[in-house]
């Protein structure tokens, strides 16, 4: 692979890039939108998180030990699970572990397939491949799971949704059939962003991974190959993990006979807020 090298930004260049933040600040000011604080907070987090990531990646790439790489992938899964929990506001005992299992089974399997079958780097867990690919797969799965769970829990735990659930069962739907009808909308919602991106990719936007590779000096053909693989991996991982998360949520809330757990015994049903 021919590498032309990247034009280094340098501290001065980066500092000048931050001047771009004046544009949203000016828009907020003109529209009297009180978002300035939020923007500065977000920028501060970006700087901190990316600098920390930079340090971690430096170490991970230099050491390049399989255990360390797997350990970091697990940390990323933990962070993804935490984000899903705080964004959905779901408070169900056992849910954090369930989410970790879902991310492992969905994202982990797809990442393993990409590394072991498609890319085949040496060593297999070469940090330079495993970490960025894992990050993209996990990040998209996290968004998909969040969308699916948000939609589904609002429906299952709301009064109207309960009535609909009872109606399906009352008209003779099996618990499986009722679950399928009930969660197809949530699964659709989880997959739509990825499907839309897949269909329009390359028309206007050049995806981040390709941008990175092209800036890094890779020939476009190589970048395109990787991009296709990553889109397929994201599609696979988002559908698998959203499907699994929905099944687990149902299993957690509804028993084998289709009744809400806790309805027969304890009156408390889990709360969303």
């Amino acid at each position, binding site marked *: 692979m021919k590498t032309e090298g990247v034009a280094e930004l340098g501290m001065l260049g980066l500092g000048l890039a931050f001047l771009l933040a004046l544009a949203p600040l000016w828009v907020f000011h003109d529209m009297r939108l009180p978002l300035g604080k939020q923007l500065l907070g977000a920028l501060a987090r970006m700087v901190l998180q990316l600098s920390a990531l930079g340090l971690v990646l430096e170490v991970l790439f230099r050491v390049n030990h399989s255990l360390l790489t797997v350990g970091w992938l697990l940390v990323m899964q933990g962070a993804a699970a935490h984000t899903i929990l705080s964004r959905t506001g779901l408070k169900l005992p056992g849910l954090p572990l369930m989410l970790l299992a879902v991310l492992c089974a969905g994202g982990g399997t797809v990442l393993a397939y990409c590394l072991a079958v498609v890319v085949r780097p040496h060593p297999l867990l070469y940090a330079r491949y495993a970490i960025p690919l894992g990050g993209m797969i996990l990040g998209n799965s996290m968004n998909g799971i969040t969308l699916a769970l948000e939609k589904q829990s609002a429906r299952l735990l709301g009064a109207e949704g309960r*009535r*609909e659930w*009872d*109606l*399906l*069962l*009352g*008209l*003779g*739907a*099996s*618990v499986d*059939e009722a679950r399928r009808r009930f969660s197809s909308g949530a699964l659709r919602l989880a997959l739509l962003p990825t499907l839309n991106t897949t269909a329009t990719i390359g028309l206007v936007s050049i995806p981040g991974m390709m941008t990175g590779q092209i800036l890094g000096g890779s020939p476009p053909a190589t970048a395109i190959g990787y991009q296709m693989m990553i889109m397929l991996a994201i599609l696979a991982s988002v559908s698998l993990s959203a499907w699994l998360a929905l099944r687990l949520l149902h299993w957690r809330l509804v028993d084998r*006979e*289709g*009744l809400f757990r806790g*309805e*027969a*015994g304890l*009156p408390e049903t889990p709360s969303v807020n």
Partner: protein
Amino acid sequence: MFQLHKLVLAPGPRILAGPLSLGLDPRQGLLLRGASGSGKSSLLRLMAGLARPRGGSITWQGLSLEGRLAEHRLIAHMVDQRPLLKGASLRESLCLGLSLRGLALPSEDQLQEGLRQLGLDLPLDQDPSRLSGGETLRAALLRGLLLPLDLLLLDEPTAGLDEAAANLVMSAVMAAGRPPVVVVSHEERWAEACAQRFELRQGALHEN
């Protein structure tokens, strides 16, 4: 025949009624009465297999419902007080139970005839969410009457209907060949039509 054995009704944190131990026979019509909050609808939900009793057990034709709720829901159907009609068209909502069971769907004429018997004259491609309360109630009843059932459970099936519509509903439900029916209602017309009448009062079932 339902057999209640030390049945406790408590859909929420509070116990509404029980322990109830007695037999209930819907074959000639069974009426349940009682003040609101006395547990009538909760008992109906138990009979429909949509809930489990807090305590005790309930059997239908000698078999306990526990562990057989999904099976029981295939032969027993409850029409809600404020029923939900799902589907893009009235035809779709009327046929939902049949299509969920994988059964043959009735023809347009059969559906129109069913609607007419309940005093409804509606196009089958109508959006069901635009029906009035009384129309929704009767459409949901027809959706139940189309199913092959051993038991029909009705929660206030004529509340808010005018005299003529209420009479049509009652004759459709009590017509020969219809499944046994359990009705929750305050109205005198059902007391005359049902052979067994019970009142839920102070946590107990009294025959009257």
